[in-house]
């Protein structure tokens, strides 16, 4: 077993979660003001992102999807370059060619973000195969939603990863929503885990709003993959607190369900826990939040001051 997270680690995870939250909220504000294209936020899912990503080492790789800001920021992405990418500026991670949906950052080990639902699942076995065959130690964490788990490629990917014993950590962020459709309408059971488990790999469900629980499960899974070689599966049960694609009035959302999940906000849960344990004072927590705002002030300023790509960029990077 691992040693428990230190106080400092927990505070820094709290700060990472707050950074993700405020990044997305501020982006949504910008969007509402007509200054940014629509985006998919993952407000409410910060614990899943931070819990898993903080369990990865420098050699490990990440594949993600359309709700990637949390994964990127948890991995240490520069908020300025991330926002610049989302705003289509040439200083962004992908020179402004990705926008918010397909941001990858090779230097951070964030490879191959796909916005085709399930696309990242199709790529993950190959990335892991390359790790294995080239003798690199890194595990490949692949984030996807419950909606992606309803795509056939989910089964193809898990099956191949098991058969070929590939080092993939499949992370299903079950946020209850599949765009505008509630998971209950499309899945006979509450969880994706039984489908995963049927493929014969270690598969667990974890409270996706409890960052400590997610982190413990992820550390255990990563260790298992390193020792046993084959893949593992984690289902983080969480909730998408904002709409599918900004702007979204969430008119289709059950108000009671939303309220119930808001009362389990992962950031408040962790902050409260740290304050109750005497690890963090109210004043220190306020200070963390101020620091996050200052970081984001600078990041948004950098991004908005950055130039758009020139029209010549339209046809560069098509072929290698």
């Amino acid at each position, binding site marked *: 077993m691992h040693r428990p997270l230190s106080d400092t680690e927990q505070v820094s995870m709290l700060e990472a979660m707050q950074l993700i939250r405020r990044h997305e909220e501020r982006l949504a504000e910008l969007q509402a003001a007509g200054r940014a294209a629509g985006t998919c936020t993952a407000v409410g899912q910060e614990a899943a992102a931070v819990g898993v990503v903080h369990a990865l080492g420098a050699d490990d790789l990440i594949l993600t999807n359309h709700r990637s800001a949390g994964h990127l920021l948890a991995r240490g992405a520069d908020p300025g370059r991330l926002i610049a990418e989302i705003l289509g500026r040439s200083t962004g991670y992908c020179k402004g*060619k*990705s926008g918010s949906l*397909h941001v990858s950052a090779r230097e951070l080990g964030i*490879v191959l973000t796909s916005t085709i639902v399930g*696309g990242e699942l199709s*790529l993950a076995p190959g*990335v892991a195969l*390359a790790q294995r065959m080239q003798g690199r130690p890194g595990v490949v964490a692949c984030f996807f939603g419950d909606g992606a788990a309803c795509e056939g490629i989910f089964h193809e990917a898990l099956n*191949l990863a098991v058969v070929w014993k590939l080092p993939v950590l499949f992370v299903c962020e079950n946020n209850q929503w599949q765009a505008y459709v509630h998971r209950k309408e499309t899945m006979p059971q509450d969880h994706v885990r039984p489908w995963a488990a049927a493929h014969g790999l270690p598969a667990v469900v974890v409270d996706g709003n409890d960052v400590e629980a997610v982190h413990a499960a992820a550390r255990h899974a990563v260790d298992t993959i390193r020792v046993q070689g084959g893949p593992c599966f984690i289902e983080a049960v969480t909730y998408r607190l904002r709409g599918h694609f900004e702007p979204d009035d969430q008119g289709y959302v059950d108000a009671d369900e939303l309220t119930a999940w808001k009362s389990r906000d992962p950031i408040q849960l962790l902050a409260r826990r740290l304050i109750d344990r005497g690890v963090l004072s109210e004043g220190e927590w306020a200070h963390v939040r101020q620091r996050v705002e200052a970081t984001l002030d600078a990041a948004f300023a950098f991004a908005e001051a950055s130039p758009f790509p020139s029209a010549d960029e339209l046809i560069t990077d098509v072929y*290698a």
Partner: protein
Amino acid sequence: MHTMTVNQAIASALAEEMRRDERVLMFGEGVATKRADLMQEFGAERVRNTPLAEAIIAGTAAGAAAMGLRPVVDLLFAPFMTLAMDALVNSAGKLRYLSGGQFSFPMVALAHTGAGWGVGAQHNHNLEALFVHAPGLKVVMPSTADDFKGLLKSAIRDDNPVIFFIDLALGEAAGPVPAGDHLVPIGQSVVRRAGCDVTLVSYAKTVGHCLRAAESLAQRGISAEVLDLRSLKPLDEAGLLASVRKTGRLVVVHEASRTCGVGAEIAALVVERAFPLLKAPVVRLTGPDAPAPSSRPLEQAFVPQAPAIEQAVLALLREPALS
């Protein structure tokens, strides 16, 4: 020079490239079973059987390519590529661009295409235009053993995703193949027969049909030039235009259906770039806009044959000049 069949040329290209570069690996449904010699020489790590799941075969190739391997996947029959379309079109074709050039996708997807087996439309469909239309991909479709070997080796060394179509009817066709490290560059057409009255442009098995038509046209004193495109994307515009400028007449021949086919692109290109030199309208001879039948005579009638090409040329030469 050795004489070998197209299938042997493919096998020798695969073996040579796997020997040359340890990043090259091959997988697909039954690949390790059917290519026992590769399996024996390179081992189970680099020659792999997969589940019957085209989407994950192609996706795995794209992921592996992005991270430094050079996979060759065999998708068996071109129609099965529709199940692999997401990975080929949306991942391999687009993620280099979307990532601002951070990743490249050096992979090859092989598939058999075309008439010759009598198995009907779900195993016989010329899908090349779909892939030509998708950005970020290259598409090759050779006609001789020599080109199969040289283009496959180039495709494996290319840093981009290459869709490599194997016309089923050509598998046992034999021809001379240069010895040694024989490479044919992707994107260059070749004049298979020189002529001055009309250009017949084609690729894959219909190149042979054009050559036969040209031969019998020659007996009537008509000199037809036969241009084998070999590569559909990138397309050798210069080679195509040079030939049409010389002859002033163009017949495009392919087995794939007509609407939005490769022939339409070629016709448009020639009209845009060489219109003043055209002595007659451009003619397309293609398969119909219909699924391929299985009955052998119908299957053969699907494909433009030499007599039809000859007739088209004769009709064209009777056409008055454009202006």
